[in-house]
């Protein structure tokens, strides 16, 4: 469980996050939704400690992560898997080396065991026969999938995904969403997913936090979101033709 307590973050005089308090629960897929520029990525980066927060604190299973020294943070980070918005694969390494990298750094597994784990992870994301390709030889969707495989290779306790399915076709996007939600249940992870994809929201949104201009505007589940009265959230949810038609049917 991750608890966010009253955190705020500014860049210069631009206040990007304003007094946000929420919890991300264990074994659930927690979604953060909001328009482009609303502060989703910043919130995620505050959680994983890439940005220092100005106020408040963030607790990982009651451990006050944001107050830790860099060295102590490192220990909690070993329990995290992170998927960056752009994938952030190491471009001098092959797909296999990328996924194997955390195993090389933090386990004493034999090469055989590591290969085995890598292949398992890659088949989970439907990527077989790409082991020896370099990131520059992959498509955008493949990069995302390799990055997910790398993020889960150490079976993390906490998984953060920044727009895991942006830029993917609807079918692959659905596969990725399903995968994330399956893995979350299987490994009992606390998963946090940034998205503005309504399909993901409906498919895997067990707990949804809507960020509006840096404020936490609404929280609920995918069952509640279609019936919400909140004006800004309504505008966001029913901004596409597809969701508007869906609403008429409901």
């Amino acid at each position, binding site marked *: 469980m991750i608890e966010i307590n009253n955190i705020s973050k500014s860049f210069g005089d631009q206040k990007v996050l304003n007094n946000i308090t929420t919890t991300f629960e264990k074994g659930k897929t927690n979604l953060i939704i909001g328009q482009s520029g609303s502060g989703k990525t910043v919130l995620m980066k505050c959680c994983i400690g890439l940005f220092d927060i100005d106020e408040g604190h963030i607790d990982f299973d009651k451990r006050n992560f944001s107050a830790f020294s860099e060295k102590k943070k490192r220990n909690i980070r070993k329990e995290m898997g992170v998927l960056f918005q752009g994938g952030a694969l190491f471009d001098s390494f092959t797909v296999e080396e990328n996924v194997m990298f955390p195993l090389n*750094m933090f386990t004493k597994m034999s090469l055989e065991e590591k290969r085995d784990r890598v292949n398992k992870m890659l088949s989970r994301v439907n990527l077989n026969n790409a082991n020896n390709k370099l990131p520059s030889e992959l498509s955008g969707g493949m990069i995302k999938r390799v990055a997910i495989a790398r993020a889960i290779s150490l079976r993390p306790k906490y998984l953060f995904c920044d727009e895991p399915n942006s830029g993917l076709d609807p079918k692959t996007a659905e596969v990725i969403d399903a995968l994330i939600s399956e893995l979350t249940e299987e490994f009992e992870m606390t998963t946090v997913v940034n998205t503005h994809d309504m399909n993901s929201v409906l498919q895997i949104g067990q707990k949804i936090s809507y960020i509006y201009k840096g404020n936490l505007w609404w929280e609920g589940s995918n069952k509640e979101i279609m019936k919400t009265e909140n004006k800004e959230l309504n505008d966001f949810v029913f901004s596409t033709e597809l969701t508007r038609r869906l609403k008429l049917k409901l």
Partner: protein
Amino acid sequence: MKIIAEIGEYVLLMLQAFRRPDKGKVFRRQLMMDFQDLGTNSIGLIGFISVFVGAIIAIQMAYNMDNPLLSHKLVGFSTRQMMILELSPTIMSLILAGKVGSSIASEIGTMKVTEQISALKVMGINPANYLILPKITAAVIYNPLLIIFSIALGILGGWGACLTTGIMSTTYYVEGVQAWYEPFTLTYALIKTVVFAFIISSVSGYMGYTVEGGSVEVARNSTKAVVYSSILIIIFDLILTQLLLI
């Protein structure tokens, strides 16, 4: 004011870099790759330039010393001295600052802007240690070898010039190369090289690591890496020469 802040930041980054590596095996593998990238791949360039520089000096010396009262040993002697004292350690280091420095800064800088460094960090790895320490180690070990190689080729280049232009016989040239040799000059050259290697790799590592933004900033910081390394090399050349030779 800004420069003091930057020096402080540089020192902090070096303190982070100089830690025991998380995994010895991973460090050794990175080191091997950096030996290849930063060292072995420069052999051709350094060799080529050294031969020509040696040849040019021999010819210039012979041209300047046609006075029969001067010893015939002077051509070989000066070629050797100039290669050891200045041309190999300093000029070759400046060339390496251009070649290796820009490559280190742009490699690390690109990793920074594509969030690969953030990815390392959130895996619980110390990126400065993982990325910069092997490069500094590789440069500090490999550059002295490159410089010895450069001295040898420079002297051979001078000999080649004697042979092809007929300015001097081989015996005279070799006598000159062997004349009045003080082993300390080589030590001095190697000390300088090690210091310069540290400057090139650490300053470039710092410039790459502190890139903020995109490809334009990566390019800007790679240029800065070369400029700052070169300036520091010349300043430390003067300081070390003062300290060691007088």
